[in-house]
């Protein structure tokens, strides 16, 4: 990090006898909803003794780390993604020679913590650089890009840049922060027709918690929200680098009527704030129903009860009655998820058989639960089988898991298997608002049975192209490889059914135009389509793997994931990042993080930030710190003297 003279002055002013951060820079390049983020930090051990310097970054769980590099006094450590077994083996060899340092990755709710610490002599300069990529999912008409900043100290050169390039044009863009109102004006947003630049560059004085403070107030999240222009309902087809991405987000279609059975866990563990927030959310959700919608409520603990045995229209009288029913629920007893879900499915089947509901409507079960089954069928795999057996093709199951006592993986699996999705609700957050927000996402189904097709022999290795439903404000994304062709045009054909109509939509794209455009853009993420295709494919394979019924199938999927992840350099649950010094003698390993332990941290009722797992750093007993060289020795002495892994950090999940 080359500092300007002014920044150098700041640096000297804040330099203490500890660790000084010279620069902390975050840069995101978002192109067509796919982002590549780089977090760079340059630090100095300003103390007179050797110290540990840590680099700690929070990244969204849905992102894949693609690289991590480190430079310690001119010695560069370069990362590469390898199959997990290969990476672990190489790492173990280094460890056996006391030449290994660690990277710790831990999960907390929807974020992952990436942390590494290196022990370096006094005067050492260290630069860290972490890269990760993610696809932004459109929710409630917006794409959200979040950046967690935690420089930890005042920094002479602190800068965040988010560059957005959306070929079809940017409709809206705004940015906010959680650091405090005083920072609102420091986040500058500039945008043109198809580009936006969000920059945050506070001076040292501006970073301070108060005028004479030495602590930084910059710790929190910058959120960028934006949406793109859409010329038509037919979607947007983009071709770049031999890959295509198709975005489909029609609007201006009337929502389909819905048939919803709300299945609410009222076991003892829901007692208190969780139930109160669920009631609050349910009241708002019920108010959203229209006379065209049909609904019922099933509440369960060890027993299963129904507010109404059959589906009823969302009239004001029924809604008022349902609200009264929910308000009077007193949570107690065990959890019989199996029976409750089966009852909900029966209700939908009966309504469908008796033609109570419009055949074009959308039928869904929304399950809200905060714990594992304790009564009746408690084997998760058996519940999964039972539900799948009775569910019909036209029904979907959406699961909401409140708190940490719930097996979220199970809820996700059962939802995915039944054409729905799952969401975690943080009980210590504003759970009512989270429940409502989730409902808003699924409350306006606009299309059913959507299929995206392409001309024969024009594409290959297409990601999921059949979708059960499209919800207003979201977006369906299909990607694939473009096969060589004499034509410069790629055409997609999308079919779907809306309220009473069937639609066929055609979209075409020039296969050369976008690459020419990207080449002109200084801050675009070239290669986005290739990475996005791999990202989507891997995510889908991971989902498929969790539903695979045999070990052979699982193994095959794992192998495919590994091959793709290594080729596209994504750190997935099946690959690891091995960070090596130039001569490959010293190594670090970024392995898979673990989910918070099931039941470890059940949500309390308080509000505030989500709990983050505490990282305990314990040097192994064989670590032998060496005497610190003087400043002069470090800066001028031969590089060989500054060996990194004099002390080795813990890899907690290796």
């Amino acid at each position, binding site marked *: 990090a080359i500092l300007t003279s002014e920044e150098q002055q700041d640096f000297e002013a804040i330099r203490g006898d500890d660790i000084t951060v010279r620069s902390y820079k975050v840069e995101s390049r978002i192109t067509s909803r796919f982002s590549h983020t780089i977090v760079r930090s340059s630090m100095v051990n300003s103390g007179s003794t050797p110290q540990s310097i840590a680099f700690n970054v929070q990244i969204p769980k849905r992102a894949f780390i693609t690289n991590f590099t480190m430079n310690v006094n001119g010695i560069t450590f370069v990362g590469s993604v390898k199959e997990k077994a290969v990476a672990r083996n190489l790492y173990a060899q280094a460890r056996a020679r006391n030449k290994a340092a660690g990277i710790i990755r831990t999960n907390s709710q929807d974020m992952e913590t990436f942390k590494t610490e290196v022990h370096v002599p006094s005067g050492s300069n260290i630069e860290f650089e972490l890269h990760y990529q993610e696809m932004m999912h459109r929710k409630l008409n917006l794409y959200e890009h979040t950046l967690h900043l935690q420089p930890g100290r005042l920094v002479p050169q602190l800068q965040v840049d988010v560059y957005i390039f959306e070929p079809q044009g940017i409709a809206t863009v705004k940015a906010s922060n959680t650091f405090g109102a005083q920072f609102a004006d420091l986040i500058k947003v500039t945008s043109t027709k198809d580009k936006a630049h969000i920059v945050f560059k506070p001076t040292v004085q501006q970073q301070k918690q108060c005028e004479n403070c030495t602590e930084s107030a910059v710790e929190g999240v910058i959120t960028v929200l934006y949406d793109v222009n859409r*010329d*038509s309902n037919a*979607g947007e087809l983009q071709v770049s680098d031999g890959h295509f991405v198709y975005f489909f987000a029609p609007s*201006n279609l*009337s929502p389909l009527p819905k048939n919803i059975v709300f299945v609410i866990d009222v076991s003892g563990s829901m007692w208190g704030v969780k139930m109160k927030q669920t009631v609050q959310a349910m009241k708002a959700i019920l108010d959203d129903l229209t006379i065209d919608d049909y609904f019922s409520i099933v509440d369960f603990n060890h027993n299963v009860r129904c507010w109404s045995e059959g589906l009823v229209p969302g009239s004001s009288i029924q809604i008022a009655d349902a609200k009264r029913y929910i308000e009077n629920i007193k949570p107690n007893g065990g959890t019989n998820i199996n029976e409750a879900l089966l009852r909900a499915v029966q209700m939908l089947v009966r309504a469908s058989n008796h033609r109570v509901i419009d055949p074009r409507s959308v039928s869904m079960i929304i399950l809200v639960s905060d714990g594992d089954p304790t009564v009746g069928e408690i084997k998760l795999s058996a519940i999964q089988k039972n539900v799948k057996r009775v569910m019909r093709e036209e029904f979907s199951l959406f699961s909401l898991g409140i708190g940490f006592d719930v097996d979220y993986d199970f809820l996700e699996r059962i939802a995915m298997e039944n054409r729905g999705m799952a969401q975690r609700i943080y009980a210590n957050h504003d759970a009512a608002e989270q429940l409502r927000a989730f409902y808003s996402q699924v409350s306006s189904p606009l299309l059913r049975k959507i299929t995206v097709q392409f001309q024969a022999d024009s594409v290959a290795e297409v990601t999921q192209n059949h979708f059960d439903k499209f919800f207003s404000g979201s977006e369906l994304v299909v990607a694939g490889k473009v096969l060589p062709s004499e034509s410069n045009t790629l055409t997609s054909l999308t079919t779907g059914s809306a309220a009473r*109509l*069937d639609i066929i939509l*055609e979209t075409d794209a020039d296969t050369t135009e976008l690459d020419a455009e990207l080449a002109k853009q200084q801050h675009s993420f070239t290669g986005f389509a290739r990475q996005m295709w791999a990202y989507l494919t891997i995510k889908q394979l991971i989902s498929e793997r969790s539903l695979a019924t045999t070990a052979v199938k699982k193994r095959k999927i794992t192998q495919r994931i590994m091959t793709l992840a290594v080729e596209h350099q994504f750190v997935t649950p099946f690959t690891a990042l091995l960070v090596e010094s130039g001569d490959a003698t010293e190594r670090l390993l970024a392995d898979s993080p673990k989910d918070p332990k099931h039941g470890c941290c059940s949500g309390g009722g308080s509000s505030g930030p989500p709990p983050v797992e505490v990282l305990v750093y314990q040097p192994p007993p064989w670590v032998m710190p060496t005497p610190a060289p003087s400043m002069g020795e470090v800066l001028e002495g031969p590089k060989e003297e500054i060996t990194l892994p004099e002390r080795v950090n813990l890899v907690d999940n290796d």
Partner: protein
Amino acid sequence: PHFIIHLPRSNMDICFNIDSKPGHILNLLSDSGTGVTVNGQLIGSKKVNKRTYFGTIGIYYQPDGISVIVSTDGITMTDGRNNHSFTWGSTAEIRQDGIRISIVKNSNVIITINNSTQVMVLLHRVWKKHPVNVDFLGIYIPNENQYSPLVHGLIGQFSIEPEVILYDIHKGADPLKKEATMEVKGNKLLVTRGWQKDYRRDKKRGSNVYCWFIHNSGKGFIDGHYSQYIVPNLSSFLHMP
């Protein structure tokens, strides 16, 4: 807007202009027997006292309660509470009950009702910064459409081909344009030979259709006065006295 009426039995094309005011809605086809009505709303050019064009076309099919509104911005289909909009930006086909809407990207839309009535609306885009011209629509209604005997409207009335006698063809005031006398619907009219454009095949230049031009907004050729075809909204049926 210009009207071109093809008379197959006489093997002749007749043209006329209707110069009403921007905002007025003209009934083009009204068939209370089949429940189909087609209306066009006029827009003016950017300069006043210039031409008028069709800016919006409304097609309403009463039995299903479906209306299709085609404007220079997009196509909207409404059935009671449901409202679905599509832009000109993509090729699309939409089917609901007996209605089929086929949109060809930035070009035209064909609305077919029960496979018996078809209406084609052509989009004419002009240079956005043009000092006078605005985007407008053209409408084409095939002679093969099947109507009930109750059909009427500025175009609908010609589904039953009127008897036309043309004679006394002579040079006119403009030597390039011949004149003649036409006897139609009991009226004797002085008509002028001219041409209009059919833009279905070539949207930029169009192809010439030679026709006999009726002056005074089709007076004498159409039933009554053109002002009798002005209706209150885009889904109105025509009530002729």
